[in-house]
């Protein structure tokens, strides 16, 4: 299977189904079976941010379509690509769909011009509609908790609203203020460690860490005491897609924590304790956070900011790890392995595999996409 060909052509338009067998493509959905050499087409897919969603067990695929200026959702059975259900949604312009981890509820949200989150059951019935406010910009990001108990909705007003799965009503909302006053909340601030010049101990040759360019300085986390004020970014008022609101949401796999990023405070990652429904930890980096992802097995969060470091947080503490290597490795995105033992760090044209051992050592392995490794 010549994967390289595939990636070049479709670049970011491809999606693997959870059992790895089928590979649909946007534009017109072409479903390739990787086992049998067969192809199937699905018309009228919607070219939105998150138009295709597979259930966790890979049984069903939900596809957002737009026909006659109305949004529809089609549910397909993945085993034989039968159309199971087809229903229209009450959205103006569907922006995204996502299955709950238990595979029974589909969350559908509308364009950012209108705050609307609709919840459909697997068989196409509308379970509930939620709208927090009108007229202002609406939903920016949505995340399900792993137990399907909560649905976190992040919106442009900088708040995350948690809906519960019993009544589908909001149980709490989390705000992202620029100052943290509560002394119970731990705020970790990344600070640069100056390369220590050991007086009276000059090692020849100089250690490898210092051999790198000046930009790769070590950094560490310091605990800041309340009240802490975070760096904010003032959004440009007259442009579209302003940098405000909660842009990224992720639940930890044990359902204990929710990590969020507010785009108006771009350097910080907020970690909320879901058991107590309050803010737990704030991590402030030196540069804006690009992406973060939870370890699929334990409550460990990996953060990357586009620099050459990867940051790991767990309830025990946090650490910043320099990616070793020649030159400057800009970590643009990261991806955990399913077992939680290793982490793939991706830069523009390189990737690095990072192994986490039970000891504190972190090993790395480099690779390049396209290599036959």
């Amino acid at each position, binding site marked *: 299977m010549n994967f390289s060909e595939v990636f070049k052509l479709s670049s970011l338009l491809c999606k693997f189904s959870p059992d790895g067998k089928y590979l649909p493509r946007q534009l017109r959905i072409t479903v390739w*079976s990787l086992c049998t050499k*067969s192809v199937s087409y699905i018309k*009228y897919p919607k070219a939105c941010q998150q138009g295709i969603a597979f259930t966790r067990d890979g049984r069903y695929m939900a596809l957002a379509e737009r026909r006659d200026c109305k949004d529809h959702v089609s549910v397909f*059975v993945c085993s*034989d690509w*039968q159309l*199971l259900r087809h229903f229209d949604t009450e959205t103006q312009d569907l922006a995204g769909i996502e299955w709950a981890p238990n*595979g*029974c509820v589909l969350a559908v949200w509308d364009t950012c011009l209108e705050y609307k989150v609709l919840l459909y059951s697997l068989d196409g019935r509308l379970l509930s509609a939620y709208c927090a406010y009108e007229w202002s910009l609406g939903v920016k990001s949505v995340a399900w908790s792993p137990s399907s108990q909560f649905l976190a909705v992040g919106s442009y007003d900088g708040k995350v609203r948690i809906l519960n799965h019993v009544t589908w009503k909001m149980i709490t909302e989390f705000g992202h203020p620029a100052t943290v006053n509560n002394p119970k909340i731990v705020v970790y601030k990344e600070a640069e460690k100056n390369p220590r010049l050991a007086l009276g101990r000059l090692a020849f040759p100089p250690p490898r860490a210092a051999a790198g360019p000046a930009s790769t300085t070590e950094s560490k986390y310091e605990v800041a005491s309340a009240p802490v004020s975070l760096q904010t970014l003032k959004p440009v008022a007259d442009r579209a897609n302003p940098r405000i609101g909660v842009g990224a949401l992720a639940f930890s796999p044990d359902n204990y924590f929710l990590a969020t990023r507010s785009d108006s405070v771009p350097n910080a990652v907020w970690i909320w304790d879901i058991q107590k429904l309050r803010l737990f930890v704030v991590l402030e980096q030196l540069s804006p956070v690009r992406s973060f992802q939870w370890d699929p097995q334990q409550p460990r969060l990996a953060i990357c900011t586009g620099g050459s470091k990867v940051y790991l947080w767990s309830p025990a503490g946090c650490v910043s790890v320099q990616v070793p290597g020649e030159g400057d490795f800009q970590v643009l995105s990261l991806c955990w392995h399913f077992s939680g033992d290793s982490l793939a760090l991706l830069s523009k044209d390189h990737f690095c595999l990072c192994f986490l051992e039970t000891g504190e050592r972190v090993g790395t392995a480099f690779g390049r996409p396209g290599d036959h490794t």
Partner: protein
Amino acid sequence: MGEWMTVTDPDLSSESKNICQYTSETKMSPSSLYSQQVLCSSIPLSKNVHSFFSAFCTEENIEQSISYLDQELTTFGFPSLYEESKGKDTKRELNIVAVLNCMNELLVLQRKNLLAQENVETQNLKLGSDMDHLQNCYAKLKEQLETSRREMIGLQERDRQLQCKNRNLHQLLKNEKDEVQKLQNIIASRATQYNHDMKRKEREYNKLKERLHQLVMNKKDKKIAMEVLNYVGRADGKRGSWRTGKTEASFFLRNEDEMYKILLNDYEYRQKQILMENAELKKVLQQMKKEMISLLSPQKQKPRERADDSTGTVISDAEEDAGELSRESMWDLSCETVREQLTNSIRKQWRILKSHVEKLDNQVSKVHLEGFNDEDVISRQDHEQETEKLELEIQQCKEMIKTQQQLLQQQLATACDDDTTSLLRDCYLLEEKERLKEEWSLFKEQKKNFEKERRSFTDAAIRLGLERKAFEEERASWLKQQFLNMTTFDHQNSENMKLFSAFSGSSDRDSLTVHSRPRQKKPHGVSNGSPVCTSKLTKSLPASPSTSDFCQTRSCASAHSSINVLNITPEETKPNQVGREGTNQKWSMASRPGSQEGCYSGCSSTYTNSHVEKDDLP
């Protein structure tokens, strides 16, 4: 003033002229005029006055002046100055007395007039000052009135201004609201416009996409975007096909079924979770209720009038709730009525508890605030008094104990009186005496037992002797027989000897067991009849214990003495001993299985029987 002046003017010509001159020269206030006049009139001794007075009557016109004065005086009502005329033509003589009288009268009059004048003048002064005062007040009040009027005008002005502002603001608000409404309408209209435009554009876009598809499809037919390497082909070399086009009913139904199954599983799981949660919460609520009831119920023992109502309800509630609880636990349903009952009862209890706590709080606050006149404070005082009393009592008791101890020690240490010492000794020895008595009785019993046993032993020994004799005789007879039988077989003497030795050995053992037998037998002499042991001795070979007689089984057991050793240690010697149970018999038996089992079981069964018997006896 002027009037006064004008009256006197014509009468007193020269005088009045002077006065006029005087007054015309000085234009002063009336009061000053008055004062001047008084001065003028009241000081007759000044030079001016002298000249003034001399100006009226000179030496030439005495007669004229007298007649003039007489005229004046008579007009005024005074008596005439002339004497009473004797004749008409004679000259009247001046009556000096009349003149003096008139003078006196005139003086008196003058004084009166002066007084009156003074009074009038003072009154005048007073009135003048009053007038001044009133005028001042009037002026002040006028000023005040002015200022208050000005203030009022100012306030009115301000009020008007504020009302204007208010109106303006209302107007602004209305304008804003109108604007908002307008903007909303605009937004709505624009939204519809945009929707319409978007739909139009979407349709265009779809058309273009289809066209693009068509164009692309033409190209795509030539090249497949994916190349499958190492493809595992099918048996017939054909490509696999999707079943998307054919909607096979079975597949469809199967999918539907699976979907519904998944949904139902999910719902069931969730319902289970919710039921569990419900059950837990109900448990917690019931526990809370129980605890609340238990908290409130002890209060009913204390005599509090206020709490009577609540305790009454508590008791009734407790009864109700007990029934409820049993009902609920039995059913454990979640039907409306049960739920409502639970929540209502909890609410009631909570209210009662709350009111109770509030009452306690009030009492506490009263205690803090008020003095010692409250009932509750007195009760506490009572408590304190009681505790003090108790403490005193305790102390007294302690002291008494101490003194008693001291006395005891003293008396123990020193032997004061023979009587007392003997008494004391008696007291101490009583206990020992009693103990000794008990031991004595024990000893006596044991002695009796020993005596009995000795007797039984002697009897047994006698019997044994007799039996031995019998046995010897038998042996002798048997030997004789043998000898007689075995006259031909001489070489078997040695066997006979052996047999004899074996037999004697066995007989010895038998004798031993026989000896032990009667000893063992004796305790059960009450329950058993006379032992029949001699006859059993012949049955030295295995014989099943057919009877349930304890002694017989023992004997048969003892007959197998080569194998069995039966030790019985009876601890109770008499069934009529007090205080001992029949469980102290011990068996230790090393028995061979098989043939002995029946015996053992027989023994154990009899043991239990005897055990039962022994229990019945005391």
